[in-house]
């Protein structure tokens, strides 16, 4: 018998980092299913191929940095990056696009800064933005949704990924694109003219967003993250959209509901904004962080040059997170309020 010397506490709570990451992966599934239903197997292929590349890159980086891959791969953070980027990329993206995105995310955005926990920017979003800036054509080619065009099958999706030259898929502007390009039509007319629009937002998009919302709510219920940042983001986005809606005229920025259910709003709110590593930490900090992202998303969507804005908004606020943290330090027990801030 040997007595062990271990520092207190000896008990441990239910949360474990690998478990948290696994839950996040699980929570993306409803959204993936909906995306697949409306846009075909492109997203699934993205995710699978991306996961392979991500695991390879992670192993390589860990080996180069002299860490044990067997131990660190277990935290599943590379898979989370692959899932999120795979979802964000247009379906039927060529294999190299996915590979470049994942490699930039894992190697540049994560391991170059010291690995999980040290990265200032959300790896998936950093990878996405690198791709968006480098390959704007491929990155803005979104597939038509079910009902507005043909849906390729699994084989075609694989073909699109690995022999992109032989694949001839059609593409179509997303509802957010249409809204941005619109400068003469009332929203009602725009709705009637374009087949991409559904009941509240784009066909497919609205359901995908609701599915991500469901996954996010489950994570919330599992206490994987707190409600502050997502709610603040959605609230500020809705608020701005509401203020500038102007009843659906030709200069309208779109209704709050349209914004909530378009593009990557829910994915961003529950899977990107809640990334603990790159967000603010304190409760007040998270409220500010989320609200600022919501505002930036609206501004970039309506006034910016790119189709969606979550990635840029998140990266910009990643910069600001340490600053927010510095100014939202809680008051320590037994201290006066003024002492805590300097």
């Amino acid at each position: 018998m040997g007595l062990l010397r271990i520092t207190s506490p000896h008990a441990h709570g239910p949360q474990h980092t690998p478990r948290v990451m696994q839950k996040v992966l699980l929570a993306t599934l409803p959204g993936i299913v909906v995306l697949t239903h409306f846009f075909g197997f492109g997203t699934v292929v993205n995710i699978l191929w991306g996961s392979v590349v991500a695991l390879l890159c992670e192993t390589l980086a860990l080996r180069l940095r002299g860490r044990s891959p067997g131990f660190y791969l277990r935290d599943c953070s590379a898979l989370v990056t692959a899932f999120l980027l795979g979802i964000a990329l247009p379906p039927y993206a060529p294999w190299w696009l996915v590979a470049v995105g994942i490699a930039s995310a894992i190697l540049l955005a994560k391991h170059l800064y010291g690995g999980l926990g040290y990265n200032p920017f959300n790896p998936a979003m950093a990878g996405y933005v690198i791709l968006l800036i480098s390959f704007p054509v491929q990155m803005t080619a979104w597939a038509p949704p079910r009902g507005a065009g043909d849906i390729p099958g699994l084989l075609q999706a694989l073909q699109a990924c690995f022999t992109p030259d032989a694949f001839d898929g059609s593409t179509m502007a997303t509802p957010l694109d249409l809204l941005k390009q619109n400068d003469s039509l009332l929203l009602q007319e725009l709705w009637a003219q374009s087949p991409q629009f559904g009941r509240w937002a784009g066909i497919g998009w609205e359901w995908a967003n609701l599915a991500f919302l469901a996954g996010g709510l489950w994570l919330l219920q599992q206490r994987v993250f707190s409600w502050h940042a997502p709610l603040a983001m959605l609230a500020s986005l809705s608020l701005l959209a509401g203020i500038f809606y102007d009843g659906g005229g030709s200069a309208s920025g779109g209704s709050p509901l349209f914004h909530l259910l378009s593009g990557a709003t829910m994915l961003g709110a529950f899977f990107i904004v809640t990334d603990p590593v790159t967000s603010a930490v304190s409760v007040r900090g998270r409220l500010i962080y989320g609200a600022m992202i919501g505002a930036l998303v609206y501004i970039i969507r309506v006034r910016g040059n790119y189709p969606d804005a979550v990635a840029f908004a998140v990266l910009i606020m990643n910069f600001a997170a340490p600053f927010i943290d510095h100014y939202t330090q809680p008051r320590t027990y037994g201290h006066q309020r003024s002492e805590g801030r300097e």
Partner: protein
Amino acid sequence: MFELLAQHPLLAAVLTLLLLGAVFGAILGFAAVRFETEGDPIVEQINAILPQTQCGQCGYPGCRPYAEAIANGEAINKCPPGGEAGIQALADLLDVEALPLDAEHGEEQRKAVAFIREDECIGCTKCIQACPVDAILGAAKQMHTVIASECTGCDLCVEPCPVDCIDMLYEQDSLHNWHWPLPDPTSHRVEIIATDRQSAARSSDEAA
């Protein structure tokens, strides 16, 4: 004037830059005078970092002389009692590279206190004269003793003692100076494999 400038854009650019330079220079100069901060002179700051053992291992007769020497460009790695931490602090203060401790001047050792075996002391006062901080009490032909709380552990008194009755007592591990060590940061690296193996072996044991 304006026409001249309009015709010679290069001249205009140079003039603008000069003007800007003059304005900002003036602002900076004003700020430097107006908001001047008075800091400790550098020697005092260096001296505050040195451990004040006054042991002379650096080759200077005391810490302050060494501090003055450092301020004049002497190497910062000649103080064994200050150790690596002291060198790091000096490097940070002076914004120079931290060098490894110069072995020529001795090695970093545990803290020590001089102890006089009092029944052997012959009362020669040589150690009293050698002690840089007056930590030895006694008079001629009287037994001497070290005031332990004042002793810096410099060991300068050991050499002059004609009867060799001074010992340096090194600090021992005890209940009073024990504290939890920082968790080993390298255990993020290699040791993990070892612990992994252990825990794997353990879990397979439990399974069996």
